[in-house]
């Protein structure tokens, strides 16, 4: 784990406002995501994030600051 479970939960939670506001911001430029597309985008981001989080850290292998919890 590259990041503690608690921090991972919070980052996933952060994706919600990110996707919601990103959708609002895109529409200012005329790009309109449907609800399904937004959900898909969110899903992809969450999966990507989870993969990143559980992938073993390469290079110098400390457990990281919060790896213990």
């Amino acid at each position: 784990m590259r990041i503690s479970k608690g921090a991972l939960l919070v980052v996933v939670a952060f994706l919600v406002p990110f996707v919601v506001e990103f959708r609002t911001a895109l529409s200012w430029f005329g790009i309109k995501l449907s609800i399904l597309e937004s959900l898909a985008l969110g899903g992809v981001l969450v999966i990507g994030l989870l993969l990143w989080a559980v992938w073993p850290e390469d290079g110098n292998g400390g457990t990281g600051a919060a790896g213990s919890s």
Partner: protein
Amino acid sequence: MVSRPYYLLIRMSSGTEQREPDHVRTLGHEEYDPIGTAILIGIYFLILVLLWIFMYFVEFLGNGPTVVGMALTVVGLA
């Protein structure tokens, strides 16, 4: 393992800190530069300025008709 001189490895004596097993060093006021805070708050500042410009000049002034003065009202108090 920790190289910089001001990183002191200590155990906090206070009971409240018992839940914080990963307290690895103590930083005083002089040796601590909140650079991360400066970066975050800088980003916040930029967001505020950009959104303000967007809200005032695009959303608000673009939302006409707007209440206007018969003659130009000059606000000069305070």
